Structures are given as C-alpha cells and as structure tokens.
C-alpha cells in the first residue's frame, strides 16, 4: 500500500465516523426517523473490504449499511438526504437508513431482514458463474445472522456449487441485546464454515491491515478459483444496536476497553509512526471531513421533500409484457408506465455481459 493510499483509507474511516456521529446528533434533533444503526467502531471492515474491490464487483449488506456506501465512494450528500427522507436521497426517500443502494457502484444495499440477504448474495454469485465473468460478490452481516436458517441454506449451496461469494461476519458480539454467548452454540463463528467444507478465517476487525490481508486472499480465491470463504471479523460497536438502545446489557469497562483498540486510532498511530505523517496533518483531515459532513447536512436540509406523486413510483418496471389497459387504473402501474428513473444505470452497470 502506498503512503497516499494509507492516508486515503484513514480519511475514509474518519469520514464514516464523523458522518455517523452527526447522524446520531440530528436523529435526536428529529431530522432522522425510524431505525438508525450506526457503524461506529466497525469502520476498518467496510473500508478495508471496499479498498480491495474492483469497479465491476458487487456487494450486499445488512441494515447497518452507511459505512460501505461511503467507503465505496458514493457521494455522502444523497446518503444524508436519504436519512432525512428527502427527494434527493440515494433511494429517493423510500429506503431510509437501512436501505442504501448504489447499483452503478455494485452496491445492492441494505437489507432489513437479519440474514435475508445471504441467499440473495448466493444468487448474485450464481449469476456471475452463469455469465462466466470473474467478478466477486461480498456479503456483510452481523453475528446475529448466523443463527438464521437463511445462513445455512446460502452457505451450503455456495460451497456446493463453488460460488464466488465472500461471506463476512462482522462479529460485534451482540445480536441486538443478546450476547453471542447466549445465542450461538459455537463461539468461534468462522468455524461454522467447516459444516460446509468452506474455507474460513478469522481476523481482527479493528485492524485495517489485517482485514485487507485476510479479505484480499478470500477475494482472490473467489475471483480465480470461484470458491466462497467465510470470514469472521471481530469488531465492536460503541453505540447500541440502534438509537433506541442504551446498551445496558454490557459494561462501561467493556466499551472503554474496546475503544483502546479503535480502528481509526490504531491506523492513525501507524500513519504517524510508520508513514511519517504529522499529528497536524491528521487533524487537518479531521477538520476537512467534519466540513464535508456539514455540507451533507446542509444539502439534506435544503433538499425538497418527495412529491406525493412519487409515492406510487418505483413499484413496477414499465414493461411491454404487462397489458396497459388493466394497469392504467392502478396508480402504481400508471407510475411505472409514466417513468422509469434508472433504466440506463441499471442495464449499464448491473448487467455485465459474459466475456
């Protein structure tokens, strides 16, 4: 990794951190509603993973999904606008915090059902195999998802058919308020891969370099050998599960202890000690990202609310195979006939023809 790249990743982690902190703040102000799951503490996993992906690769995530989109280079302004339910949001104000998508960047987004996107990731892997390209799909989920039936079904077929999917458990030790000890019979979650004969690794998810090493190997395996991997990244979230969770099921000491191995702090220390950056340079970066987040909030504040008309848009795809006569009385069908906002981006970026 070059010195510049090391600094870029630092800045990305910092941007996620400041973005998330600001989310918490404006949530309290009432600008963001519903569920808000913050990625604070887990930044090294998302940033490390995205730094390894090729432009035409795919990923799909759980609902704790802000960090990946930022790390993948999505403009954070429409992300903040989405959180505020504005028309300029990345999902046009229809998704909110749990549903960030950016299909042109291969981001198939935030899934709100624990474990629900794992079979979908297997399907993306299957599609890649069928087309015969060397793309890969990353699938991020929490430790809570491994106890869902969908986890078993997805991992079994991925190993059975050699699908190029990397499954990444971000083990932050708690599925909402239930600790791993109380939820999983096996404590080393990566070992669950052995049930499927799947390559498996654990990694310190607070250490960006370690994440990159382990993930890099898995992505290589998926790309070259078409084989899946199960990775357990041990990480931690400093905040509660969502904004309504004060996190009383764990001790203050535990949280403070984990903050000592904060991924941004550790990476910053490395930049200073090994890459000869100065504290002032890191502080300047912090000021910059704070200003960037300010601009995000301004953008969201100044953006219009969605029109009532848009309520009916984006349900169906306009199609010559649906008869319009029956459809034109139903507002959702009518809206599909009227417009399709994204046909071009979808077909250009999501559909990658066989080489």
């Amino acid at each position, binding site marked *: 990794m070059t010195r510049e790249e090391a600094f870029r990743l630092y800045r990305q982690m910092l941007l996620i951190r400041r973005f998330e902190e600001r989310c918490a703040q404006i949530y309290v102000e009432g600008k963001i509603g519903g569920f808000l799951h913050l990625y604070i503490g887990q930044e090294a996993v998302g940033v490390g993973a995205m730094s390894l992906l090729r432009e035409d690769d795919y990923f799909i995530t759980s609902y704790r999904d802000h960090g990946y989109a930022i790390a993948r280079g999505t403009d954070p302004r429409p992300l903040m606008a989405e959180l505020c339910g504005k028309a300029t949001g990345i999902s046009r104000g229809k998704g909110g915090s749990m*549903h960030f998508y950016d*299909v042109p960047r291969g981001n198939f987004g935030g899934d709100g059902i624990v474990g629900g996107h794992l079979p979908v990731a297997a*399907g993306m892997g*299957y599609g890649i195999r069928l087309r015969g390209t060397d793309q890969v799909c990353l699938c991020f989920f929490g430790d809570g998802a491994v106890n869902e039936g*969908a986890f078993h079904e997805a991992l079994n077929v991925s190993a059975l058919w050699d699908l190029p999917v990397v499954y990444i458990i971000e083990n932050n030790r708690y599925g909402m308020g239930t600790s791993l000890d109380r939820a999983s019979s096996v404590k080393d979650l990566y070992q669950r891969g052995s049930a499927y004969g799947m390559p498996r690794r654990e990694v310190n998810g607070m250490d960006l370099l370690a994440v990159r090493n382990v993930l890099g190997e898995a992505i290589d395996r998926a790309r070259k050998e078409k084989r899946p991997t199960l990775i357990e990244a041990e990480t931690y979230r400093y905040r509660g599960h969502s904004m309504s969770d004060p996190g009383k099921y764990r001790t203050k000491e535990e949280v403070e202890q984990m903050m000592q191995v904060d991924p941004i702090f550790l990476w910053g220390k490395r930049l200073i000690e090994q890459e000869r950056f100065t504290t002032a340079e890191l502080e300047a970066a912090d000021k910059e990202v704070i200003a960037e987040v300010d601009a995000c909030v301004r953008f969201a504040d100044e953006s219009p609310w969605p029109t009532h008309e848009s309520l009916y848009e984006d349900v169906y*795809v306009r199609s010559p195979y649906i008869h319009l006569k029956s*459809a034109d009385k139903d507002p959702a069908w009518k809206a599909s006939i009227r417009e399709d906002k994204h046909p071009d981006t979808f077909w250009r970026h999501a559909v990658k023809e066989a080489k």
Partner: protein
Amino acid sequence: MAILTMREALNQAMREEMARDQSVFILGEEVGAYQGAYKITQGLLAQFGEWRVRDTPIAEEAIAGIAVGAAFIGLRPIAEMMTFNFSILAMDMIVNHAAKYRYMSGGQMRCPMVMRGPSGAAAQVAAQHSQAFEAWYAHVPGLVVAMPSTPKDAKGLLKAAIRDDNPVIFMENEVLYNLKGEVPDEEYHIPLGIGDVKRSGKDVTIVAWSRTCVTALAAAEQLAKEGIEAEVVDPRTLRPLDEDLIFDSVRKTHRCVVAEEAWPMASFGAYVSDRVQRECFDALDSPVIRVNAPDVPMPYSKVLEKAYVPQPERIVEAVHQALYRQEGR
C-alpha cells in the same frame, strides 16, 4: 394448431425462452436429472446443461433467494417450487426482497424472475399439500400473479412472465397438468393483465381462475341444460387484475358468482366481490355470491376431499342463488 397438455405447453414455453435468451435459467428441486417432480422440465437439462437447469437441495429459501440475487444482476431465473405449499418457506425472499428492492432503492433495481409450480389441491395429499395461496401473493405490491386455466394461456402467459422485468408468481395446478387444449404453432405470448371470457352468456357472470375456471365451465354446461346462460370470466392474471372485463360482463348479466378453491376469509375472491359490488352496484340484481373451500384445512379422505374442493354442483347452486331460484322448484 397442435393439441397439447398443459404440461407440454409449459415445457415448450421454457424451452423456447431458454433457447431465445441465454440469461434464462431454471432452478429447483428435481428439475434436472429427475426431469421434474411433475415432469414440467422434462428434457431441459440435456438441452441446456447443469448451470441453466440446476438441481437444488431441498432448500426453498435458497432457491428463491438465488433467483432474486441472479435477477438483481440481470439474469432471468425461473425458480420452480415443487408445489406452492413449500413456497411459504421462501416467503421472505419474495415478499421482502423480490417485491421490495425496487421500491426501497428508489427505482434502481429490477427483479426479472419467475417463481412457478403447482398450487391448490391435488388428490388426497391432505392439509399441508393442498393449499390455495394466491391471495397471499396477490396482496403484495411489486408482484405479478398469474394463474392459467388452459394450455394455450399457460404457454403464452409463461413466456410473457419470463420476459417481463417484474417478479412474477406463476401458479399452475397439478390436476390441470394433463388437461389438453389447442396451442398455436406460431410464436406468441399473452400479456399479463388481460382476462379472457371462456364462455359467453347473458344470465350470470362466473368469475373463476385456474382449476376452478374449468369447474365453472362444467357448471355452465349443466346450467345451459336448464336454460341458464352463464358467462365464465377467467382473469388469468390476479395482479394486475383485468377489472374492466369483469365489470363489463357483470353490467351485461347483472348477476355475479365468484368461485375459488381458497378459504373464504380474506381471499382473492373476497377482493373481487368487493370490487364488483362497489363498481357495479347499480347494475347488480342480486348480491355477489361466493363459492369457496370450507373454512377448514384440507382433509385426506376422498369423500371429505370431494366435499371440500368446489364441484360444479356447488357453482350451479350459487348461480341459482344469484338468480333467486330455489332448489327443487
């Protein structure tokens, strides 16, 4: 025109679409080497190979999820459910993923997939294997639901379903797989969302789909002997629903019977009768009469099963009621 069974017609539809478009593939339990639990996919593995005709483990959530994921990146999967009774294990993939990602992403995504297989009662397979779940799927915005009653409709609608960019729930019927009918020799498809008048008449409208439409046609034969001319309307697609076809018929006949195999409470027939009574209030000479399964699970014994599945006699009786004719007079 060739005379084909519905099984052959469905097979042809998939074979033709797979030959036409490399992105179409099939996956499901026993679809390949076994040639299909009901032989709908017979011969396809040999023609298209294992990546396009994929035998899966018994894992409905994975089957549906793989279809959803592959569709998201532009393929056109056909997920076969051995029967729709098992599709409820995959409900999350359909309701929360296939139907919702387009909306949740503000229109960025598409899910051009088909989930197909037999639905409804078969023969003496009891409560867990004889259920009519069309209302469950028709309830969900984002889905298309098709239920053909003839070989011609089955082939034409399935071809449209495969080509369409929306997720289509395509419910067949095991009892109808051997039903024969004329199927055009030339290339054709039937757009989703257009109903069909299966028999014209002036005295009463019977709305019915899938197997119950065939039952309704038998009932119409019996009624004709009494001098009652029933019009049988087959919506073919439940979502979107060709309401105008139903309303036009009711405005002509002034009486309406809605027959279906599902339970009465919160069924699709309940929705149709609500719409008819609301939109054709002035045209109706009697309330809409409904024919349903009794509000109990399906029993095993053939005697009880016959009492459960709507028979032509029950539809005849409902028509009599709609016409205010009492039995035995």
